């Protein structure tokens, strides 16, 4: 087995008396899609927040691409090559779709004050290059949306906001993409289409690794080859969806079957 892209050892995070992550061991192989499932409050989103540095871990270690990233600030984690979406959309609604995508590409843009104030011609070229790249990416997800990049994000429907959020995470070409319930607020068909588009981008980028938090089991079944089931911050099962869904503990904790 190759070395995993992301590996967590005994990762623990507590909120007061609540143990949101309880000594979690988790590994993701490069270029794979890992499903992360579990009941509400089982620690899935906390896991994302701890990996991305929004919440520091109380104990344990995170290694990414061979180097430890435990305790790094969110900015540094992102620079290392991890991008994410949020369970509740976090687009900047008053800004244009293009501006929102550029938020995702922040680390590749030249934002020295003097450059932005004075070198306007060079800046304009940078903007146009980025515009083309952003348009191309958005086009994969929804061609009509790609023609509306100068409209405010507030004006587009939920499904398009999800698409923009995914593109915002993809545009910096991260190594690892963390998708936090992309189906929230979308129909079943819309979710499947979004996932197909994400997989298409994954193919194109060659080597993108994805961790997907999802409640729609058909989505998990279709796009992941391996998944991890959490309950009370602990891993209770791991393997292909077909296997874990037969696991009695999983069925009791999550799928609601006796």
């Amino acid at each position: 087995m190759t070395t995993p892209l992301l590996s967590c050892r005994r990762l623990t995070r507590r909120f007061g008396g609540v143990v949101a992550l309880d000594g979690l061991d988790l590994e993701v192989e490069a270029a794979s899609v890992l499903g992360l499932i579990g009941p509400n409050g089982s620690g899935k989103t906390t896991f994302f927040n701890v990996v991305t540095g929004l919440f520091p871990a109380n104990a344990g270690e995170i290694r990414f691409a061979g180097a430890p990233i435990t305790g790094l600030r969110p900015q540094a984690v992102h620079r290392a090559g991890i991008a994410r979406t949020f369970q509740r959309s976090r687009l900047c609604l008053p800004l244009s779709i293009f501006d929102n995508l550029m938020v995702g590409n922040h680390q590749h843009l030249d934002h020295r004050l003097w450059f932005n104030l004075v070198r306007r011609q060079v800046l304009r070229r940078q903007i146009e290059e980025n515009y083309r790249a952003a348009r191309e990416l958005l086009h994969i997800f929804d061609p009509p949306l790609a023609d509306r990049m100068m409209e405010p994000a507030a004006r587009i429907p939920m499904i398009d906001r999800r698409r923009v959020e995914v593109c915002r995470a993809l545009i910096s070409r991260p190594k690892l993409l963390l998708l936090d319930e992309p189906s929230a607020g979308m129909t079943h068909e819309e979710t499947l289409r979004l996932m197909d588009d994400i997989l298409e981008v994954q193919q194109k980028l060659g080597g993108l690794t994805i961790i997907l938090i999802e409640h729609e089991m058909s989505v998990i079944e279709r796009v992941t080859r391996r998944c991890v089931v959490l309950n009370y911050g602990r891993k209770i099962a791991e393997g292909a969806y077909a296997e874990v869904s037969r696991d009695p503990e999983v069925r009791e904790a999550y799928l609601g079957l006796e």
Partner: protein
Amino acid sequence: MRSRAIAALFTALVTAYAWLLLRAESQGAIAALILVGIAAGILAMRTQLLRPVARSLGSNERFAQGLAFAAVVVIALALRDDDFALLLLTRVLIVIVACLGLNVQFGYAGVVNFAGASFFGVGGYTAAVLASSARLPHLLVLLAGGVTAALAGTVLLLPILRTRGHYAALITIAFALLFRTFLEVNDALGGPQGLKLGEMRIGPLRFNDPISAGPFEGSFYLRYIAVALVLVALAFAVVQRLDRSWVGVALDTVRLDEIAAASFGMDIARWKIAAFTVGNFIIGVAGALSAFMIGFIAPNNYSFAESLIFVSILLLGGIGSAWGLSLATAIVILLPEKFQIIQEYRFLMFAALVVLTLLFRPVGLVPRPLRRLVGPPLS
């Protein structure tokens, strides 16, 4: 072409109105003018008459800026020997500069600064001290006013950058209150009596001599207006260029969603300090010019209440909107000076104005336009 004509016509009307208002002396005439202005504003909003004007000004921005510049020059020349009217006009221009600085902080990065007048004062006192003791060219003194204000702001904000929420606002309030007390007890800076400044000079130009060139005679304020107008143009250019760049996108994101900003690699502290520093620099330069123009500064000019007026200008004009704050500055500065009945109640009036704005038009008089980094402006 037609669109430019609409913009020009609108500017001509506004210019004529401003000229009438600045020149009017009887309180009855002023009251009538103000009522006409309010009625015209409400009517224009109701009938959407301003739509084509807004579209025209928005799509020919360079042209619109040229028109605004020309309008100020025309008004200044038309009032050339009316000292009081010119003083008011200069004051409006200088406060526009200061509010443009505040706009970078509050409007873009979301750093609320309740000490705008204090940083204005830091610039003013710097000018007063340097102009009397050092033999610096006065243009450099203006710059120095900006630099000290920027430094003071940075030192103030650095220790609390790691904190979230309203700490920055609280610390600026504390600074505003401290600053004035500090000035009042500081004998080196003149105490409550303040300091006098000599006249401003740039090269051979002595700013306080009346102007006479052949048949043309004009008030000495015209020179200050010229300098203030250049500052307005520069500040406008800086603020709008910042807005329409990667920096603008980053500042907006830091204001709107710190978690998203941090998750995509933005250094929130860095952007806040950058916006605060740039803003205070602009405010400080404006304060230095203001001190030269009035020729005398005292702690009373830089009270917390003045800071609140700056903030209310932004709220009234539309947070983040450079054009909006310019219009709002003209209203907030001119109204109480011309219409003296409300002079005593001006703070009450500002408070009412802000409440009314927030209730009925929370986006402000001229809402901030959407940033369009690529493509033609929205029609």
